[in-house]
């Protein structure tokens, strides 16, 4: 896939995209929205003939201490085989416990024990798919006292042991770094060659007992702080397929395409900057 920007394809935009076929680098869908056989899946299958696709899973729960839900895994495998996307990704988090699904990307302690769990689950996922999966750094609202690694070190070790790729979400870096009082430049130590995609999105600022806390709500334009860090990330690691994610208060399709155009501009400016610095 070319290192250009694409957009998250959401149900309210499906008919418009199918009709107008806007120019964009790729389309990303959430796997869990297409596991049943709705007419939306038929539309996506037709779009697949004209677009590169990325399948972003949100419910495999790679951090579950009890292992993966094999029934759910089988459905995701079937979808991936059907659409043959260019990219497949999941999150560094957990969302299933005791046969219940929590519809959230819940935080993990960054310990050797958790690393072994995620490595095992990631290997199971990649074996089932017969391909590499990229793992996304999450937005965190808390950190655990028992963590012995920082997040980039945990991710780097996960990449080394499982052979997975990385999906670097620049908004999530900004959100986590702010909420946990960390330096966002920590994430510039990641193994760049493993990064296969970037994510960009908007976040909200909420109040937590009188203190601002950033919430990864994907409900607005990409923030200026995120754009600035994205420029640094591209200078450090180079260009990659870059996604504009928007899930709540979904705007007109043109707004997403406009954000994607800004991502492409940022990438080319960062490339020129890197060339001048060299």
């Amino acid at each position, binding site marked *: 896939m070319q290192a250009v920007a694409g957009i998250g394809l959401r149900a309210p935009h499906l008919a418009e995209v199918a009709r107008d076929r806007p120019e964009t680098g790729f389309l990303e869908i959430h796997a869990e929205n297409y596991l049943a056989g709705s007419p939306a899946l038929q539309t996506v299958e037709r779009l697949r003939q004209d677009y590169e696709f990325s399948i972003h899973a949100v419910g*495999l729960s790679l951090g579950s201490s009890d292992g993966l839900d094999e029934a759910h895994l089988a459905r995701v495998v079937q979808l991936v085989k059907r659409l043959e996307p260019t990219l497949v990704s999941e999150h560094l988090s957990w969302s299933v416990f005791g046969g219940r699904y929590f*519809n959230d990307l819940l935080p993990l302690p960054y310990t050797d024990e958790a690393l072994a769990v995620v490595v095992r689950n990631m290997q199971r996922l990649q074996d089932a798919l017969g391909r590499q999966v990229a793992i996304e750094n999450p937005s965190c609202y808390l950190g655990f006292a*028992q963590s012995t690694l920082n997040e980039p070190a945990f991710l780097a070790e996960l990449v080394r042991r499982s052979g997975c790729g990385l999906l670097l979400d620049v908004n999530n870096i900004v959100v986590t770094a702010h909420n946990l*009082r960390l330096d966002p430049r920590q994430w510039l130590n990641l193994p760049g060659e493993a990064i296969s995609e970037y994510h960009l999105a908007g976040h909200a600022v909420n109040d937590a007992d009188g203190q601002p806390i950033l919430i990864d709500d994907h409900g607005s334009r990409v923030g200026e702080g995120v754009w600035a860090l994205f420029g640094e990330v591209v200078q450090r690691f180079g260009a990659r397929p870059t996604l504009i994610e928007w899930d709540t208060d979904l705007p007109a399709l043109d707004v997403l395409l406009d954000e994607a155009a800004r991502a492409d501009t940022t990438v080319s400016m960062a490339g020129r900057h890197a060339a001048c610095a060299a």
Partner: protein
Amino acid sequence: MPLALRDLQSAFVAHLAGTDRIDLAGEVLGDTIPAAARLRVYRHHVRESLSTALATTFPTVQAVVGADFFRQMARDFVGQSLPEQPVLAEYGASFAAFVDGYEAARRLPYLGDVARLDWALNHAFHVPTSGRLAVADLAAIAADQLTALRLVLAPGSTVISSCYPLDRIWAISQPGAATETVDLDGGGAHLLVLRRPDDAAFVDLSAAEATFLGCVAGQASLEEAVTAAATIDPAFDLATSFARLLALGTFAALQ
């Protein structure tokens, strides 16, 4: 001694369900934002995102009761019934029964049936298209064997019978519908929900047709289903009703 991962996740799940766990709070780094406030972000998100998912699946229920009432009802449902798997379009199978017993909605006795209709439409929309029984398929069957035939409803075909005019309630609850009132004593409704090629929809049935299809769904033979329909309406005409139901794509193709 820090909690092992499985114990940590177990404690986190208890927290999400509304139990404040001191052992969990002790694991969380706090500063100017205390651990409890950080944990609350997750509890809030789980409840609100699942309530939003229910609003997507039950749009007519939400239109009837309004967004605020729906949100509280959905939160109460989430509190006692979490999804068992990650496909949110498949979450809410027991919502209609929950609405039936929801004290605050007691004055809306038809609301559970509205939820049943929303759920059936949602289910029909999400089943894959599949082969349907056509007139030509029946031509190969000898006339005297037709009555013994046991048909299967196509995936997504659901019969809903209500004591209330569910079709009218649904119609006036659609976006852009004119403001009208529905006479709740104006008679019940029998509806057949169907997966169509590009969407899901429902059609009105007569009481006898609903009985007929209910019997077919229960694996009765056509003859048994006709007999049951005739007890509801002696004038039930199989040829007319069957032709209509066939044309709608009600039945699955013969195996």
